[in-house]
């Protein structure tokens, strides 16, 4: 079932989402990966403000290629999410509602998603040129020294993602495969 969401997200917005739903996101989202996450959690440890308002925010795990002249952003597909697993619950406790990446999350992240009424989406790994088409603007807002890993505020229009972990504890990586195998056995 296809659904649309506009950022920032609320718990109410995410109540209807189920693992396996195709969702199109519109609005501002933030890019961050390994090095930026380490710095964000350091700020939380020190009780300092983050470079963006985490309340209802969506983080996209991506390090884009440099934009060619005329492009808003270079190729921008998701990176593998598990590397952010140790940081993600801290950010969800601070208000983060959505994460976009690819690949499995650990139990700590899944529990935090349920606890905080958040959601984990996957974008198609490796479909970086296709995905970049839904990014309309991009601006580095923190950690410029990290290059591709800097935090960018990007505006996306109908950004295509699939719900992997919903706020009810479902996991598409388990259920999708199970459904397929049951169907294939018939």
């Amino acid at each position, binding site marked *: 079932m296809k659904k649309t969401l506009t950022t920032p997200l609320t718990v109410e917005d995410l109540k209807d989402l189920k693992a396996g739903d195709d969702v199109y996101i519109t609005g501002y989202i933030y890019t961050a990966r390994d*090095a930026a996450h380490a710095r964000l959690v350091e700020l939380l440890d020190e009780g300092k403000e983050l470079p963006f308002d985490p309340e209802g925010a969506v983080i996209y795990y*991506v*390090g*884009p*290629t*440099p*934009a*060619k002249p005329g*492009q808003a952003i*270079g*190729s*921008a*597909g998701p*990176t*593998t999410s*598990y590397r952010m697993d140790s940081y993600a619950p801290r950010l969800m406790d601070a208000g983060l509602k959505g994460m976009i990446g*690819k*690949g*499995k999350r650990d139990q700590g992240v899944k529990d935090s998603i349920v606890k905080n009424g958040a959601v984990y989406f*996957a974008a*198609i*790994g*490796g*479909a*970086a*040129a*296709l*995905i*970049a*088409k839904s990014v309309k603007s991009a601006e580095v807002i923190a950690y410029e020294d*990290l*290059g*591709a890993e800097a935090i960018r505020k990007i505006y996306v229009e109908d950004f295509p993602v*699939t719900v992997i972990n919903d706020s009810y504890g479902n996991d*598409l*990586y388990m259920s*999708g*495969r*199970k*459904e*397929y*195998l049951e*169907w*294939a056995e018939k």
Partner: protein
Amino acid sequence: MREIDAGLITKEVKRLAIEANYFLPEDVLESLKESRDGEKWELASATIDKIIQNAEIAKENQVPMCQDTGMVVVFVEIGQDVHIVNGYLEDAINQGIREGYEEGFLRKSVVKDPLDRVNTKDNTPGVIHYSIVPGDKLSITVAPKGFGSENMSRIKMLKPAEGLQGVKDFILESVELAGPNPCPPTIVGVGIGGTFEKAAYLAKKSLMRDMDEYSEDPFYEKLEKELLEDINKLGIGPQGFGGNTTSFKVNIEHYPTHIAGLPVAVNINCHAARHKQVIL
């Protein structure tokens, strides 16, 4: 002795680095199309379809197909009658990587020290494997390797008693553990035999094959095909959403080994199976 100019090597490596990232090899694209047409599970065929669309957009707009433009792995086969002039071979290759990643708008993903983690800002150095072969030609294969799939690599020193079944189990277990992480559908590279590092090298080397290329040994060719079937029974599917196509090729390279050993290495490649070769 045939002379080859180091400047030519730089120029060619630069070109190959850019082309490898923009243009998915035609045979890989054809294989993906076959996989899509063979998928009866709708979400799986729709997912492969988007991967194909992506490759077409990358080609048309001349942009990287994946944002992870990789750490550059280079296989160099140097004819023993070749003499490189006007520079050092390794510097010439790294200069090609440097220029290609800058001019091609490719991501610089290499950090100078694995613990200190400061970006070298030009994607150098590459990981370069040399072999000396007969003749007076120089073959260079440039293969940008993304780390989503590289991180799913595994190696195990099996006991000889574990035999063929042990090898099969380890390969299937590796694909199972990787699950959706290495961006399936994948190509599974396997190295069997040699020593610890030889097995890993063979696994990577096997990923350089064309899609219609199987092991020259009929036993291993049969094993490659059997393993592909077994892997696709796992049901992980494109992107791990479920489906038949978890992998679309298994490549096995093997080598003599010690009486006490049975090393097996698995190196997975994502669907963006990038490599370009030139023979000078």
